[in-house]
């Protein structure tokens, strides 16, 4: 394994991601764990472990991103997820376009130029509508494991309409649909559709420039990609590790010689 020259940590609302890159900016090492309420302690332990595992000393730069970035005391630099996801994806996929990042707490649509610069972005409103939390809630209610909701939703062609994009209201809607005997598969499909419609509205705000790219934890859900393609009539590109793109972009920015392509 090549030597790690910089670390990037993405402290999200659902998971904490840590990525190490080598001098050429290749993703050399990564680790993900669920976010805990005591972020500061978790991050310290997480970093200690990563450093011990890879024989890294304190001089390796660390760039922090994500909602909890303010709590990463060891960070040499702190950058927002928008810039980091854009850098990560640009380096990974090699071109600009429209990036959709669906995270646990918020979703973003980011316009990236052919040179890799962020020129515009849109984020979901103050509520959890259009975020991973929306599906997480629904999965719990339907007693379907989170990793399974995508395949379950795709296993049927029947689809019920969920009119609410609000997480709380959608949950009440789901309860009454269950009471009316709708199948869990069709409800899950409807919930995905509702989320995607919300995302498509955000894409329109920024304006869709091909290709459409997807990052963030929710990108691992196959139904999301499929429905996004259906709704936008545009193929969606996915990096190898969509969930790591924020931490990867952060790590790239930690390299002495910026190799993120800017």
């Amino acid at each position, binding site marked *: 394994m090549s030597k790690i020259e910089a670390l990037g940590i993405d402290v999200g609302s659902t998971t904490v991601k840590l990525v190490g890159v080598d001098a050429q900016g290749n993703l050399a090492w990564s680790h993900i764990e669920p976010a805990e309420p005591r972020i500061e302690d978790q991050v310290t332990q997480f970093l200690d472990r990563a450093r011990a595992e890879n024989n890294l000393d304190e001089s390796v730069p660390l760039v922090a991103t994500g*909602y909890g970035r303010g709590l990463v005391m060891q960070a040499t630099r702190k950058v927002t*997820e928008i810039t980091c996801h854009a850098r990560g994806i640009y380096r990974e996929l090699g071109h600009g376009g429209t990036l959709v990042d669906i995270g646990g707490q918020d979703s973003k649509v980011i316009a990236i130029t052919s040179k890799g610069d962020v020129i515009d972005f849109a984020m979901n409103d103050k509520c959890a509508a259009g975020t991973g939390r929306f599906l997480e809630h629904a999965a719990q209610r339907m007693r379907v494991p989170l990793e399974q909701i995508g395949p379950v939703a795709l296993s049927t062609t029947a689809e019920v309409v969920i009119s609410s994009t609000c997480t709380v209201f959608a949950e009440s809607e789901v309860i009454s649909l269950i009471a009316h005997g709708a199948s869990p598969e069709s409800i899950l499909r409807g919930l995905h559709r509702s989320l995607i419609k919300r995302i498509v509205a955000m894409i329109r705000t920024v304006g869709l420039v091909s290709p459409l790219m997807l990052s963030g934890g929710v990108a691992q859900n196959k139904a999301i990609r499929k429905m996004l393609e259906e709704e936008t009539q545009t193929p969606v590109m996915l990096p190898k590790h969509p969930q790591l793109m924020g931490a990867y972009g952060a790590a790239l920015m930690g390299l002495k010689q910026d190799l993120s392509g800017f």
Partner: protein
Amino acid sequence: MTYQRTPTQDTLRYQWNVNVIGKPALRLNRWLAQLRQPKPSPYLAPPLNITPRTKELIARHYLEGRYANLHRKVAWVTSGAPAEILKALNFYVLYPENHAALCGAARTVVDIATEAENAGYSRDLCSYARTDIGALLSGKTPVGKLPKPDLLMACTNICQTVLFWYQAVAHHFRIPLILIDTPFVYTTASDQAINYVWRQLDAAVPIAERVAGDFLSSRKLEQVTRLSKLAAELWMQIIERGKHRPAPISVFDQFIHMAPIVEMRGEAYTVDFYAALLKEVEQRIAKGISAVKQERKRLLWDNLPIWYRLRFIAEKLGAHGVALVVSTYTNAWAELAPMFDPKNPMASGARTYLHAILNRGTGYKLAMMQKMIADYQLDGAILHSDRSCKPYSIGQMDQRDRLLRESGVPALLLEADHGDPRAFAEEQVANRLEAFVEMLGE
């Protein structure tokens, strides 16, 4: 038998509380404030030297208000109302919107607005309306006490909410309400529209006279209009000094020092105040003092301020060398200055108040922002999508897109509320601001 105070006793009580005790106490307060060293900020210039005087002016205004019922007639008016007529009739004029803004800055809105919500007013209503109605129902206010109105004047040039808000107040106090209806202006106002408003102003005079118990003197009206014009012209010059690089004052400074131009128009001391402020701004330019110590990027602000987080946003942007240089909102009290004509107060008043920014098409605001971007050499714009101010926020989505496409500057839509912190998500606002600053580049 109840004890009735005589008018002489009331006047004496007013003079004692306001002129003998209150004003000297406020003056002393200002002197003490002038001696204190403000806490230095690593990113921002110290507050303007005039700040203690601004605070004194505002405190004095509310002190006079507190005892005004003992001494003179009181009118409550909307921010875009032709208050010159009332000033000329010697009304004490209170601006509930300013009061609510003050509650916002004092962070008392949630407590006071809840009183209105408990009485059945929806949380979807403007937070200014909820705050003032809450204050009226509960007596809660950070300024001590608000005077009871004898007359109300609402002008629809800022929004339609004022229509029913003021009707509710009129019903509560059982007092007359003068409504001035201003037809929407898409480009420039037609003669019919001006005549229509002019006639309403004419019709308002006898009502105001009856409440005042006095006749309107045309000489006094001319004088008040002239003072309004002078203050607005000075305010315009102060704003225009922001064209200087680096900008001597920021939009945040303008938010703090705009209270007199809104609620003390038509007074000689307001003209003096802005003359002094202009002088200080020019001194800052001469001495090379800038609002943001390391000004790197310059932005525009659209819509009302987020009153309860002024400092937070100023520091957040200042830390990255980003200065808010000009705003469509503070400019609203400057851009109309040339329209005031003291020789023709009624006709020019009709024209002036018809052309308030919120009474004009969204294309007008877009063109104004584009002009500001060119004139002030701006790098971007922040459009505050204000949950409470729908007329100001409508069209911002398209305006944002067109700023990006036509003027080539990035623009950020920031969701919040001018008064109610319950509609404000600090973490998300901070994140958007930071991402936007990163996007602006080095």
